């Protein structure tokens, strides 16, 4: 089943076409990865899907409904949780307080209910904190729940962002370069955690530079270059795709280039 699909998705910034006519699918229950060289438009695709940018053309559907150009908060409420490439935690708040934010759309108390403290509101608050606690434990951050987010180690901040997105109880978790700045041990830990999230039934969409990581965990890979899709398939298929190799390795190296000429 397709969870998320874009059709002819286009995004322009002035004269620059960052994403051009992109057809792209995320199958339910998979770990799908979007890769491409720097400036290929990966993060732009993410930002259009999650409503940060408006699309200039094409459509996006999620669980069968059209979410093109919906407001960012409404898209989140539909069940798309995300992290940010350049961490965007609520820095002066504690880890727990950060994670609780994910439960905003899963709770409903209004001004009156919050002031009076109705039984429904109290029950809801208990549930909100229980979910936040579960997400913190899952990311191995429970011991640090009262630590101010801005003061945590970089790797922990990365995992905290994932915990916060998980607290949204998303159908689709969108991770924007989660391994950026992590050491090999932390990256290994991340692979394990992301797999576990997938095994829980949460679909994962991953943007990553670290090709080793992508090849290790992705079920399906889509490759972008200059805003266009140049290849897709399983990690093995993509790795043997010539256009992909060209985009990643470049064609200016003579030794690599000569055999290609010989074939032609």
């Amino acid at each position, binding site marked *: 089943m397709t969870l998320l699909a874009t059709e002819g998705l286009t995004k322009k910034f002035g004269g620059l076409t960052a994403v051009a006519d992109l057809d792209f699918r995320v199958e339910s229950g998979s770990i799908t990865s979007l890769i491409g060289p720097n400036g290929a438009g990966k993060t732009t695709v993410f930002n259009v899907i999650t409503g940060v940018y408006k699309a200039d053309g094409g459509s996006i559907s999620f669980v069968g409904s059209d979410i093109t150009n919906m407001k960012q908060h409404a898209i989140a409420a539909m069940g798309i949780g995300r992290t*940010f490439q350049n961490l965007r935690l609520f820095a002066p708040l504690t880890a727990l*307080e950060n994670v609780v934010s994910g439960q905003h*759309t899963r709770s409903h108390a209004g001004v009156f209910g*919050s002031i009076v403290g109705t039984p429904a509101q109290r029950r809801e608050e208990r549930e909100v904190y229980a979910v936040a*606690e579960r997400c913190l434990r899952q990311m191995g951050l429970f011991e640090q729940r009262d630590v101010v987010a801005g003061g945590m180690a970089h790797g922990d901040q990365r995992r905290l962002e994932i915990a916060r997105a998980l607290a949204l109880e998303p159908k689709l978790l969108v991770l924007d370069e989660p391994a950026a700045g992590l050491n090999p041990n932390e990256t290994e830990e991340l692979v394990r955690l992301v797999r576990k999230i997938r095994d829980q039934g949460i679909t994962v969409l991953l943007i990553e530079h670290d090709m080793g990581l992508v090849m290790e965990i992705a079920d399906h890979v889509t490759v972008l270059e200059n805003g266009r899709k140049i290849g897709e398939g399983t990690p093995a298929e993509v790795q043997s795709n010539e256009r992909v190799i060209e985009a990643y390795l470049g064609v200016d190296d003579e030794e690599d280039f000569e055999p290609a000429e010989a074939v032609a």
Partner: protein
Amino acid sequence: MAANTPAWRRLLPNVLLLGLLISFPFIADAYWTDVAVFFGIYVILGLSLNLILGEVGLFNMGHAAFFGIGAYLTAILSINFGIPIILLLPVAALGAGLVAWILTGPIIHLRGDYLLIVTIGINEIVRIALINNPFGLTGGPNGLLLLQRIEIFGWTVRTPADFYWLVWAFIVVLIIVLIRLQNSRIGRAWNYVREDEVAAAAMGINVRNAKALAFTLGAALAGAAGTFYAAKMRIISPESFVFSESVILFAIVILGGMGSIPGVIVAAGAIMVLPELLRGFVEYRMLFFGAAMVLMMIFRPQGLWPSKRWARKLSIEEPETAAAVELEEKE
């Protein structure tokens, strides 16, 4: 930890504080009781701006406009229709809140300094409108004289002590309400918006609505403070609701610590009560005030009493569940 101390030990400071609060007019003379009334009105104003500036980080530099709208609504409706003032308290709040809510439409998306400039403009518009005496309602630069007194179930609020109890009873209720809001999903959403709008929206928070709600509630509360002020002063004129008043309110929130209820109270006290203590140096008052601001911003930018965020015990922490999770992690 706090949870281990008996309930009476934890409540004792609050009970003592409440006792002192209630008995203050018996201890102090009428003059100091009066000072305490104005201090109270500034606490309400400071807390109202704290909702907007402290909790959500909206730079509202025209808060006195809503204070003025509340005060004038009270005076106009009381003078022209003889409506009991205590009934005008919610009316003033609703009126100021409504004006604020309408204003949020075009301005709430503005960021930081842009919003600050716009709210200064709003403050000026309100002040000049009051001076221009529209429909003969506001009495122009001379203002209005309010003859009615507050009456609650036959108790007439007459002496400074009466006013003191009324205002401070309101504050006690208000603080309970505000603490509950701070600890609720709404208060949390405000803080998330203050820290990072993009991340807050990514967590499903409707940033625009969260800001508009805080702006409207804060303005409504300032309107209610206007009712107390009008009833206490009995003469209100446009010069009480000018830009410099907004600056003082802004300073109260920043000095106290953004988002901190005790901070706002301490800062309102510092700004209202210290000048009374320093009567002898009256010419140097603004000099002290300015110097204090500069020193504060250099040495204690987080405020006198920074907000202790809503640290909260987690519901269940049974050792076996924790151990079970750890086992699961290891596998």
